[in-house]
């Protein structure tokens, strides 16, 4: 029996509890936290896409980045670093977002959906694990986005500073932003409670190195289960909470903001899992690393925001299951354009994976 890392369990449990509280206070069901959905809402809020139902300045994102930043500064772990294939990371971030929005959630929401009884998330998790497995095969064979370099402190502070700016602007001049009046974007907990909970969650996630992809990745690569305990803690807390509050609903069809198009749930999450391994962490981890001063992760977050804008401007994102006027089930899913985008994303990841293998570099050195 491996030793349990309690910091990860505490961080995971807190994220699970905070997600439940935020859902009870107004966030959409099974969406106490969702990095993909919330970055998408912010993209809409600042006018990068015009999907009227998903536009809001989510304080959860601001809180996670700033909580990690404050904790990193307090612990002397804030390091401004960048230069590890930033353009590639931007593209990877964009496709991870397209995959997540095809599934309708990031890996964190996938775990929360599982805790709510949404079996589509189980299909998504199979795809996620498969994507991680494929990514690990490239890592084992030497895939690398190359070294990063020490930068001046301001470079490391870019994303935290932008988050502070966004916070001040939203509070001072909210009319600047597009804010949903109906749909998921209109459903949110009180701004200050969400910000406060996310600040603590960000700080704990920084200490615990919480990562939804890292748990499965490290289990496969090193038989290291540390991060998996965080994943399991979030699931158990969400499960117990949903059972206690009567919001647990087991099944595939008509789950909250979810579709039961199995193949595309799985393939969307293949894209997320594989991309997250190449990037060195899931969307949540990218926010936390950016808060610690990692400019490459900040670029990845910008890529994810751009990916969200693409997803909604070109109709690539998933549509939830619904009932028609006759009360019949209409299975949601993604459009033909969305399917092409997910397959294109998988092809792009394959090309990036192959082109960043070490053999080519060695061959050049021999010449």
């Amino acid at each position, binding site marked *: 029996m491996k030793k349990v890392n309690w910091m990860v369990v505490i961080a995971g449990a807190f994220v699970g509890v905070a997600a439940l509280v935020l859902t009870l206070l107004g966030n959409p069901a099974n969406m106490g936290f969702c990095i993909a959905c919330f970055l998408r809402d912010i993209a809409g809020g600042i006018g990068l896409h015009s999907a009227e139902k998903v536009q809001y300045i989510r304080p959860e994102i601001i809180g996670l980045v700033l909580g990690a930043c404050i904790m990193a500064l307090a612990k002397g*772990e804030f390091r401004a670093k960048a230069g590890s294939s930033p353009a590639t990371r931007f593209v990877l971030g964009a496709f991870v977002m397209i995959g997540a929005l095809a599934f309708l959630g990031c890996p964190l929401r996938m775990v929360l959906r599982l805790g709510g009884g949404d079996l589509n998330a189980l299909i998504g998790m199979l795809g996620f694990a498969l994507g991680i497995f494929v990514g690990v095969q490239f890592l*084992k064979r030497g895939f690398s986005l190359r070294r*990063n370099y020490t930068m001046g402190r301001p470079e490391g502070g870019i994303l935290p500073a932008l988050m502070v700016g966004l916070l001040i602007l939203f509070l001072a001049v909210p009319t600047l932003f597009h804010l949903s009046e109906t749909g998921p974007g209109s459903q949110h907990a009180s701004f200050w409670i969400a910000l406060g909970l996310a600040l603590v969650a960000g700080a704990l996630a920084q200490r615990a190195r919480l990562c939804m992809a890292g748990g499965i990745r*490290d289990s496969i690569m*090193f038989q290291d289960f*540390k991060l998996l305990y965080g994943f399991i803690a979030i699931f158990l807390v969400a499960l117990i909470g949903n059972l206690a509050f009567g919001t647990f609903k087991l099944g595939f069809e008509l789950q909250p903001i979810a579709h039961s198009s199995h193949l595309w749930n799985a393939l969307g999450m293949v894209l997320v899992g594989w991309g997250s391994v190449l990037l*060195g962490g899931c969307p949540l981890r990218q926010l936390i690393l950016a808060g610690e001063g*990692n400019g490459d992760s900040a670029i990845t977050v910008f890529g994810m925001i751009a990916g969200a804008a693409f997803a909604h401007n070109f109709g690539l994102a998933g549509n939830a299951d619904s009932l028609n006027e006759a009360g019949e089930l209409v299975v949601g899913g993604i459009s033909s354009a969305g399917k092409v985008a997910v397959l294109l994303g998988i092809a792009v990841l394959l090309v990036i994976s192959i082109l960043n293998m070490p053999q080519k570099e060695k061959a050049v050195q021999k010449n």
Partner: protein
Amino acid sequence: MAVKVDARGFTCPMPVAMVQKEVKKNAPDALVVLVDDRCAVENVTRFGRSMGYKVAIEQQDETFCLTLEKA
């Protein structure tokens, strides 16, 4: 003589993957691993211990020097 792995500038999981590759390939009695990331220090330490190495950590400015020796 200790095998040296310079994983400075790499973020997780790369430093552990580099150490793992070296351990699998050559099974050295001792390794010196250079990293500049606290998360990498924790992960390489945990991996080294799981592989039966004793791990000593020294910090010089922003570089951590981990010495792994077979216990």
